């Protein structure tokens, strides 16, 4: 049994590797800055790279004698702890850029990027350098696939990487080996990166953007869409492009991005029927339609979108953006609070909380859990109508028929309850700072589900305590709570040991 200090050193050794991995990624925005002759940004990235590498190397050298295979507890804690360390170190280029009012604001945007949320505190976004824009979108792209697994699988080849994979909120193995699983995830994302960027670039040129600008915009929009992140290089977000073609292409990218990586793998290896049989795609389609009807009912009651095309471009776009937890907007935030009405906002809150698929780039409860809970609900009703001695069996389809058992339902219920508890705490904090209930619920659902749509609460001048609460909510929601419970348990155990020693 490892002591508390030994555990701490093992955790820090692998966290150091992750920090170094992400420091290498800084070379991409550095090169971008050089190419566009943005010398200040290039210096910021060079400095940030050196700081990250220094921290990483010091931690590695101090903990080198603890290079061991990790256990479940280590894996979980590394996933959660590394995200906090990276949040601080990767915020340095943001802070040096001068576009943030404080270092806290910069860390907020890093966590928003990593968790693929998309709410931002950046100031003067329309005049940000290409280097910083590249960094913003790379953070959200890597966050969507899982940066801990990326670093450990590619740089270290660690046996215990599966624990960290689970710690980052992904639990389906596409292949028996987690290293191959991580590479399969990256292969899928890179293939879509090439296809999606190409299609968006052509669309951009077609709507009148210059070729180089169109390529950069397309690359960044693709990264944000695929990762269901919601960042955009312009303060008007998707409204900037004023193009239905661009909107349709982005819907296709972010809905596909919200699919389970296991589903992609299954369909891409010949199992095409899985797309309409899988519990997640069935659940997703159903909940999208139900929430769209709720939102549309509210919108029609207020009579603001007079025809089906505008309803599709405004109502459906925001709804599907919310449901996939992307956060792209074709409206101004204040239009939503003044025009949409309470019923539409409730529909949006439900969509944001449900979210996309498990083991995907999306957040929220996940379609799998909604499907499982719904099936168990129907099963309980069915049992009332069958003879007492009959043996009832309920199944759901997820790459084959699986028997619905109590443990599966219990696990699904547990995570959903964690989301609801986190959402409630966030709403209480927001109300405490004087915001009305409906707006508070909307903003906190957006943070909890890692969505990124805003109703105007998330601004640089919001209370600092609320910023910290939202950072914690985004972090907990993205890691699906288990890594956070592991960290809390580890700290409590450590404090207990110190207490008993005294």
């Amino acid at each position, binding site marked *: 049994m490892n002591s508390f200090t030994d555990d701490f050193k093992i955790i820090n050794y692998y966290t150091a590797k992750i920090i170094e991995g992400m420091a290498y990624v800084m070379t991409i925005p550095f090169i971008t800055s050089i190419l566009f002759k943005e010398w200040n940004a290039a210096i910021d990235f060079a400095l940030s790279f050196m700081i990250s590498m220094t921290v990483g190397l010091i931690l590695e050298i101090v903990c080198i004698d603890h290079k061991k295979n990790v256990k479940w507890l280590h894996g979980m804690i590394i996933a959660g702890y590394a995200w906090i360390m990276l949040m601080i170190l990767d915020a340095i280029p943001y802070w040096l850029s001068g576009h943030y009012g404080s270092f806290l604001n910069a860390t907020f945007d890093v966590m928003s990027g990593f968790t693929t949320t998309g709410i931002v505190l950046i100031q003067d976004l329309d005049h940000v350098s290409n280097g910083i824009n590249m960094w913003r979108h790379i953070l959200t792209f890597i966050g969507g696939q899982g940066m801990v697994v990326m670093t450990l699988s590619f740089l270290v080849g660690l046996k215990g990487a599966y624990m960290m994979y689970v710690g980052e909120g992904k639990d389906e193995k596409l292949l028996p080996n987690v290293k191959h699983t991580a590479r399969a995830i990256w292969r899928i994302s890179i293939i879509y990166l090439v296809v999606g960027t190409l299609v968006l670039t052509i669309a951009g040129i077609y709507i009148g953007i210059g070729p180089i600008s169109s390529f950069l915009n397309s690359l960044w929009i693709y990264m944000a869409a695929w990762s269901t992140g919601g960042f955009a290089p312009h303060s008007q977000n998707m409204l900037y492009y004023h193009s239905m073609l661009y909107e349709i292409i982005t819907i*296709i990218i972010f809905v596909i991005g919200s699919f389970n990586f296991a589903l992609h793998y299954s369909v891409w290896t010949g199992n095409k029927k899985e797309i309409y049989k899988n519990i997640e795609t069935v659940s997703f*389609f159903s909940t999208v339609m139900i929430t769209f009807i709720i939102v549309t009912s509210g919108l029609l009651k207020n009579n603001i979108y007079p025809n089906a095309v505008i309803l599709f471009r405004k109502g459906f776009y925001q709804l599907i953006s919310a449901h996939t937890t992307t956060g792209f907007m074709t409206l101004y935030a204040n239009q939503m609070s003044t025009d949409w009405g309470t019923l539409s906002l409730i529909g949006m809150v439900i969509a944001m909380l449900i979210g996309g698929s498990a083991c995907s780039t999306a957040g929220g409860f996940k379609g799998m859990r909604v499907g499982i809970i719904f099936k168990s609900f129907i099963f309980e009703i069915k049992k009332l109508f069958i003879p007492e001695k009959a043996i009832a069996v309920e199944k759901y389809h997820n790459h084959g028929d699986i028997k619905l058992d109590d443990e599966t339902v219990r696990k699904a219920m547990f995570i959903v309850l964690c989301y609801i508890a986190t959402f409630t705490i966030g709403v209480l904090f927001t109300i405490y700072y004087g915001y009305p209930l409906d707006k508070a619920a909307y903003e906190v659902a957006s943070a909890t589900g890692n969505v990124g749509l805003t109703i105007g609460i998330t601004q640089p001048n919001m209370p600092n305590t609320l910023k910290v609460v939202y950072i914690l909510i985004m972090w907990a929601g993205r890691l699906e709570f288990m890594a956070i419970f592991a960290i809390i348990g580890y700290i409590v155990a450590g404090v207990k040991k110190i207490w008993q020693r005294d």
Partner: protein
Amino acid sequence: MKNIEKSKNEHVVQGIFIETLYVVVMMVFAYIVGFVMVRL
């Protein structure tokens, strides 16, 4: 070996097409729902 690679690539292209088709069907369905609700 080349046939295996070709078959894999075909699956990938078909996979992208099928996933895109799912989203297109969803969008058409949503448009129809919106259209009917506006008319009603």
